[in-house]
């Protein structure tokens, strides 16, 4: 059967990863109809929701987990795959547990997690430091301390793309890493506005203001262009998710030797265990339903997971798979996962609307040096007060 799968994995590594799934799926005798659309937020999401609500659903679709899908599930547009999960005993294998939790609605499982991506990393180009007679920083504070020297050498301390999600990512990474996981969860999950306005969070905003200074001169749009600044030595570091590794690898750099990675910015080594997931719209055709079940199985199957995570540079969603040729950074991540140093993703804690408002605030804050951290914090607290 033909199964149309929409996703926004169009870059080289991503495409290679999706090929793993599609090949695994096609082994079952079904056909994978690829519906790739570049650009997650702007283009793919309206398309996917329109298709589903418009009565012309695809067979399966990639989506970030979280509250984004909740309404579609509530409205009965999505199929639950509880049966497949139970039959294949996902509960025991899928790790961490939160992955399944965020797919669960009223006791039923509505999505299949495919991989884990963590965001809280500071990446550093070692050569930039050593060449300038600096030691490679081991945490955020050292990094900040090294910045003035870098500036003298006409090097941008911290690279950063201009896209809005990167600003949001940056801020929330600082929140987890500088403020700590409790703070993060108290603000978003607990929606404690008073706390958000308090002195603990103020530290985070101070750090954000520092980061803002460090990023000055980083005039690129995309995250990988920012990574390129770093690779080429024009910038020293970048705060970005683990997917950025692929860029280093492609540039022929080796983790540990040519570049360093500091999870939790070397301060609070906690990472988000969120990632991508596949959802299955409700359809009538039994053949398609069967194909959906097959795909669900293929995605979490150990064979797929090994190849897939390798291709994508992500962490697997099962505890029982061994990474093949993991980089030191991936091993660090795996270790943190195993320790359970996990924070929930912002997407599962608050609605996309709230995320959007935080994002807008951060866009402004990071773009405008005269935007004081105090004002930003006050506005942030207000958003938290009305968050949902």
């Amino acid at each position, binding site marked *: 059967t033909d199964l149309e799968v929409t996703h926004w994995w169009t870059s080289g590594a991503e495409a290679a990863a999706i090929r793993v799934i599609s090949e695994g799926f096609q082994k079952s005798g079904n056909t994978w109809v690829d519906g790739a659309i570049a650009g997650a937020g702007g283009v793919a999401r*309206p398309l996917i929701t329109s298709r589903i609500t418009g009565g012309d659903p695809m067979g399966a679709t990639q989506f970030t987990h979280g509250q*984004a899908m909740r*309404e*579609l599930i509530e409205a009965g547009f999505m199929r639950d795959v509880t049966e497949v999960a139970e039959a294949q005993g996902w509960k025991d294998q899928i790790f961490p547990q939160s992955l399944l939790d965020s797919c669960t609605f009223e006791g039923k499982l509505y999505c299949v997690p495919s991989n884990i991506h963590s965001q809280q990393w500071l990446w550093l180009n070692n050569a930039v430091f050593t060449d300038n007679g600096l030691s490679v920083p081991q945490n955020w504070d050292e990094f900040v301390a090294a910045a003035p020297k870098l500036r003298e050498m006409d090097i941008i301390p911290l690279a950063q793309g*201009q896209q*809005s999600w990167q600003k949001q990512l940056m801020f929330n990474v600082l929140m987890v890493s500088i403020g700590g996981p409790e703070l993060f969860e108290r603000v978003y999950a607990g929606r404690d506005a008073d706390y958000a306005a308090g002195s603990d969070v103020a530290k985070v905003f101070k750090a954000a203001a520092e980061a803002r200074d460090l990023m000055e001169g980083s*005039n690129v*749009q995309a995250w990988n262009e920012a990574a390129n600044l770093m690779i080429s030595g024009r910038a020293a570091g970048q705060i970005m998710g683990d997917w950025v590794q692929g860029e280093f690898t492609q540039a022929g750099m080796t983790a540990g030797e040519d570049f360093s990675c500091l999870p939790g910015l070397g301060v609070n080594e906690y990472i988000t265990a969120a990632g991508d997931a596949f959802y299955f719209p409700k359809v009538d055709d039994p053949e398609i339903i069967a194909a959906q079940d097959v795909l669900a199985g293929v995605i979490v199957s150990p064979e797929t997971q090994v190849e897939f995570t390798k291709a994508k540079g992500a962490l697997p969603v099962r505890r029982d798979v061994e990474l093949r040729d993991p980089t030191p950074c991936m091993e660090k991540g795996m270790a943190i996962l195993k320790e359970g140093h996990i924070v929930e993703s912002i997407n599962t804690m608050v609605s996309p*609307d709230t995320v959007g408002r935080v994002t807008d605030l951060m866009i402004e804050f990071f773009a405008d040096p005269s935007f004081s951290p105090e004002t930003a914090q006050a506005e942030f607290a207000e958003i938290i007060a009305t968050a949902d």
Partner: protein
Amino acid sequence: MSQSGKPTGLFKNLSAKIAAVPMVLTALVVFVGCSVWTIVYSFTNSRLLPSTKWVGLDQYERLWGTRRWLISIENLAIYGILMLILALVLGFLLAALIDQKIRFEDGFRTIFLYPYALSFIVTGLVWQWLLNPEFGIQHAVRSLGFETFTFDPLYNTNTVLYGVLIAGLWHTSGLVMCLMLAGLRGIDEDVWKATKIDGIPAWKTYLLVVIPMMRPVFITTLVLITSAIIKLYDLVIAQTGGGPGLASEVPAKFVFDMMFVSQNLAQGFAASSMMLVAVIVVIIPWAYLEFGGKKHG
């Protein structure tokens, strides 16, 4: 010869009415219907899906308390006014130059018109490129030896709109030129002769005689440019993504992001309703004057 009675109102011009059904349906169902639908749902708490949980004016209160929305409106106003003026001026200037019975008229006209054949997405991408300080115009000029030359409008909050404007003008002014050229060619030769005999200099003739005579052309042009300005979205997306900061956000993008990224339909509906109201307030009186009472021919 038939001896029929006076046909009743409905059957008069029956074919014409049948033929107009698509138009009537479009006008009523799509433009009116969908607008009303949008307005109605702007009073709800719709998120990803339309819901009927009424919240009164909450969405509007929030909208007008959102800085991004206010910035978007301000940006559109600045961009719109500048675009209107500059597109008309540039389009007219081009048309006037081309109308001087020049050689290679076809060539010049094609050069000025071709950008219109390209999409806003392409326009935005190319100009993003050209205005990129790393390898665009600034880079090229610097490599000629002007080390301090700075031209990076897209990376400066204060100038980013002008960067977008450069691209927008590049795209649209050719069409304006075409319309203006058609208008100029439609002007009675004798009027030109009369001004020559009166000894009026050319610029004065254009300003005081020709332009006032081209009113219908200006109106058509105005409709075309204005409708494009209000919809401004693709260009911004491709060129700046709304940045730096919120410096090049526009209402259409606000609506889109609200509806599909933040998944807050109602907020998007509220924003679009405001745009709609603004359009109607401006357009209806004008459209009534222009198209309402007009006789044939």
